[in-house]
């Protein structure tokens, strides 16, 4: 076992949806003890259609949501009713023993639960608190509810994604959530370092919208500099042409190509068996190729459609030009480069068996364990927290369970 950057750091995670759990998952991957606190009522992203349990495992469908488990790998789960005064007391005692409290509830819920930074600082002076509100704790949209894709809509990302001749689009599954989650992990580590050096805790406010605006910056600057609001440009590129996805031989087969220079364009025309195109004035430089992009696309596609997507990738790459077959997810999983990088880590879950988890995008010599363990089953850390950390007797724990302040299975 190699050293871990966040050894001995304890994080209390009061999160929902995706962004907060992503932040906790990165901290857990790097060695922190992350205790997620869930209400005894259950969880928010327990999706329908759970896969069957492995043989011999109890049938608890609530423990078998693949995405929830991906986002909670390596964490512990305490099921605790924070709305109950005794539940709140337990939480307070946990805060005394924690380094970080992370939440991504709406500001209204945080206020109602009495777990905002001002309150928690009274409990532990050097606590580090992180909020991840959709739009921020101030401003006209402070009280608006939104998930990640709704923030993509307001940031301009949806407007800028997709085909120019169709409506706004969505990039794959989520963007805003992972962006905010990683930014939270980055700033939390920074705040821990600051505390280690100065003894001072602090409050981090990470408005998901503002994290996303870091990406939208080029479009914002276009508006600010030139009073022009940019539109989506599909698969084209502002500085390289041609660029696109081109049909290949077979069903649903494509290759993505980026031509970065005049000389790459010349090489491509040679591969296409059409070197005279390089002298065609319509395609002679970037601007000309951008102006006649659709004509070029047809010419390229008439060539790529005679090749499989793997053949096209190989031939074009060999000429020094970026090209890639469009892999289906299952093809990516078995792709030799992903296998080489161990991007997917197979971890054994007690009720689901072994399945893969996607690591962060870095590999290193000393912080390379990737995923630190499987996702927790519901309430799996109840006993650890109450017995080991807080010294509750077995009798008192039973009372908490009888009164539904703590639960070993979702209630209702």
């Amino acid at each position: 076992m190699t050293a871990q950057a966040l050894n001995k750091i304890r994080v209390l995670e009061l999160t929902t949806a995706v962004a907060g759990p992503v932040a906790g998952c990165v901290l857990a991957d790097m060695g922190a003890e992350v205790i997620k606190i869930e209400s005894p009522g259950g969880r928010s992203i327990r999706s329908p259609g759970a896969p069957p349990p492995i043989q011999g495992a109890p049938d608890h469908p609530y423990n078998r949501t693949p995405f929830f488990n991906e986002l909670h790998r390596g964490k512990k789960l305490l099921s605790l009713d924070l709305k109950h005064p005794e539940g709140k007391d337990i939480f307070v005692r946990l805060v005394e023993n924690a380094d970080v409290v992370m939440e991504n509830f709406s500001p209204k819920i945080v206020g109602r639960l009495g777990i905002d930074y001002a309150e928690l600082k009274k409990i532990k002076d050097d606590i580090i608190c992180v909020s991840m509100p959709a739009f921020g704790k101030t401003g006209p949209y402070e009280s608006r509810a939104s998930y990640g894709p709704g923030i993509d809509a307001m940031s301009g990302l949806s407007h800028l994604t997709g085909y120019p001749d169709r409506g706004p689009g969505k990039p794959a599954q989520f963007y805003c959530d992972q962006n905010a989650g990683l930014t939270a992990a980055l700033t939390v580590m920074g705040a821990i370092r600051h505390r280690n050096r100065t003894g001072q805790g602090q409050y981090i406010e990470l408005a998901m919208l503002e994290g996303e605006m870091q990406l939208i910056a080029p479009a914002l600057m276009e508006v600010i500099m030139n009073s022009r609001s940019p539109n989506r440009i599909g698969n084209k590129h502002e500085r390289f042409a041609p660029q696109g996805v081109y049909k290949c031989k077979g069903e649903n087969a494509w290759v993505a190509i980026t031509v970065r220079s005049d000389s790459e364009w010349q090489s491509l025309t040679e591969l296409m068996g059409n070197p005279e195109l390089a002298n065609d004035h319509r395609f002679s430089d970037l601007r000309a190729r951008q102006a006649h992009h659709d004509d070029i696309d047809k010419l390229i596609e008439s060539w790529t459609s005679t090749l499989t997507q793997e053949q096209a990738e190989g031939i074009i790459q060999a000429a020094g030009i970026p090209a890639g077959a469009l892999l289906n997810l299952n093809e990516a999983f078995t792709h030799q480069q992903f296998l080489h990088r161990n991007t997917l880590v197979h971890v054994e879950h007690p009720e689901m068996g072994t399945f893969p988890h996607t690591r962060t995008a870095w590999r290193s010599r000393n912080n390379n364990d990737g995923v630190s363990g499987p996702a927790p089953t519901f309430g799996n850390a109840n006993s650890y927290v109450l017995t080991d950390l807080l010294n509750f007797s077995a009798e008192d724990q039973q009372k908490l369970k009888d009164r539904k302040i703590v639960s070993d299975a979702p209630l209702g």
Partner: protein
Amino acid sequence: MITMTDQADDTKHSAILGGIRVADLTTGSFNYAGRLLAGLGAEVIKLETLDGDPLRQWGPFRNDEENVETGGRHLHLDAGKRSVSVDLETSEGQSIVKDIITDCDIVLESFDPGYLDTIGLSFESLVSSKTDLIMVSMSHFGQSGPYKDYHGSEIVDVAIGGYLRLTGEPDREPVKPYDDLVIQHTALHAATAAMVGIMHRDNTGEGDWFDVAVIDAALFLIGGPTQSYFFDGKVAQRNGNRLLTTEPRYLYPSTIRPCLDGYVHAHGNNRNQDLLAALMPGIGLETLFETPMGNADEIDEIMDTWLSTRDKFEVVTLAQELRLPFTEVLTPEEILADPHLEERNFLVKLEHPLEPSLLQPGQAALMSETPWINRRAPLIGEDTDEILEELLGMNENDRTDLRNKGVIR
């Protein structure tokens, strides 16, 4: 609006990465990693060629007139950095860069894998003069493995990363995400890795080398469909603006639909689907919620009728009153004009000598005790003299000599 002076003069706080020095050799959107570390207070030295980082040639430019000092991307992604302009293709330039790195805590780079080795700046050779160095290398496919020498670009990386097929309409070709979305996300992973390296070094005294790949960031962004596939064998396919699932009982809507004056993001309430029927009453939605995702086409059709007579702000206001997380689809122009950003002082004026009144995006995070540093981007080679003198002890004669030989600018 906050000006540079307001924040730079804030002396009661010391920055999170105060005292940490970073050599930033990245290009393009990979520059976001150094921008983040500068925001957290590190001294980030951008080491760029005599012509400047090619990022500087990438617009937007005011009036579309290219100016390597004032491109929108450069001003944003290089904010808070210093610049040393040095020719890495010369042996003297290589030696200067090596000496600067030896005085740094972190190196960020995004060259083709193996390039630094050819100029004597591999991790192994750097770590022999700076044993606790933290190096973060970003590349399209990674530093080793069968694809390490493949040529990448945003669209190619997301093609191989399984991401591109997941974006776009089912009846059309896949379409790439906006701009350099995944490359910039890779840079965020890289900044986080650098911080992991700092934490590890604080604990152990050891350095580390981080190998960050764009294809990995692409797969990381995909999330759930990866895990679902291993259980149900269904390979996710692009699904327009809907979530990537075919499970009929899954919550719907989470999508974008047209309304009177544009588009809205429509979203059901996870805990109470009937709220959507309450928003759009009497038109039959409530009969479709047993299998919302399975009835997505029908739900769209019914919602569209209701939405077609209302503008986006009205729709969102009514929905949010019911705790339905609807939002407006805004253009960049609209979000910039929105009072929300202004009230949060998100846009900052950084007093660039050539763009003194330009506003640009500010903080990625707000911290109560440590500042987020917004300082203007540097001119090409603006800090060459100072840093060569400060760090390497080179006097004016040495520098003039190097300048005459075309090694520095």
